């Protein structure tokens, strides 16, 4: 994860620390621990071993270096999208299903006629009057299946 640019406040603190190291006054206050170390380096620097003083200065800089701010969007954006999908999608589907009239059903979605029904129809189409009664009876059964299918699709 890439560090972000320091904030103005962090820059002011860093500047104040640099001034504290130089012994100059500053408007912004660096952290107390950094001030103590800076004073130690500034006033006791001559008594310290140069290598030790350099190490302390490096530690001090590391301590006051602006901490990278946590990026929230890589976590929150997918989370928000997930919540949106979980909430909005079912709602949209529900709304859509309510808007759909039960009439939008293609004939391909209708129940297939049985062989008995088609046989009765063929007999009636050959002009056999009695076959019309058989066709009526078969259509009653088919109609029940048809309405059951339409009811399923209307839900």
């Amino acid at each position, binding site marked *: 994860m890439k560090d972000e640019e320091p904030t103005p406040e962090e820059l002011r603190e860093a500047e104040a620390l640099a001034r504290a190291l130089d012994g100059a006054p500053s408007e912004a206050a660096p952290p107390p621990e950094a001030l103590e170390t800076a004073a130690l380096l500034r006033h006791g620097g001559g008594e310290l071993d140069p290598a030790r003083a350099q190490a302390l200065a490096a530690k001090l800089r590391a301590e006051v270096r602006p901490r990278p701010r946590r990026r929230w969007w890589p976590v929150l954006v997918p989370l928000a999208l997930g919540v949106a999908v979980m909430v909005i999608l079912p709602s949209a589907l529900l709304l859509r299903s309510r808007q759909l*009239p*039960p*009439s*939008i*059903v*293609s*004939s391909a979605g*209708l129940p*297939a*006629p*049985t*062989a008995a*029904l*088609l046989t009765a*129809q*063929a007999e*009636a*189409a*050959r*002009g056999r*009057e009695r076959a*019309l009664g058989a*066709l*009526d009876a078969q*259509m*009653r059964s*088919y*109609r029940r299946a*048809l*309405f059951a299918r*339409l*009811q399923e699709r*209307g839900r």
Partner: protein
Amino acid sequence: MKRLLALVLLFACSSRRPDWAVTVAQGHSEADHLLDSGNRAGARAVLEAIVAGAPDTGGETRRVLLQDTLFRLARLALDEHDAAAAARHADAGLALGGEDDLFVANLLVVRGAAHEARGESALALDVYQRALRINEALLQKTVSPP
């Protein structure tokens, strides 16, 4: 009779409602009961109310349900030896168009029977043949589905 009147009133009030298909289902069921009890006129009234209450739009389901109801009305007319009414109902159903499916074939069957009842043998034969062609295609699909 009160039950029948209530049902007809329901159809009249339910026109253009989105649950027309449900109303049609109830109507056909009621028509079955009325026919079984010998009340042909009552069944006809219910079926006619279904047609009158049909919404203006509704796609395939509207077509299918209307064609089936008109088929039943044509059948009733044939049973009452009213070939002209049977022809009228069948023509109204066929005018709704649609694919060569079960409902169109049924209407062709009753249209042929109406021709036959009026002595129009050539016309009857022509219409019956159209019905048989559709019937054969449907049977083919039923026997060997894709």
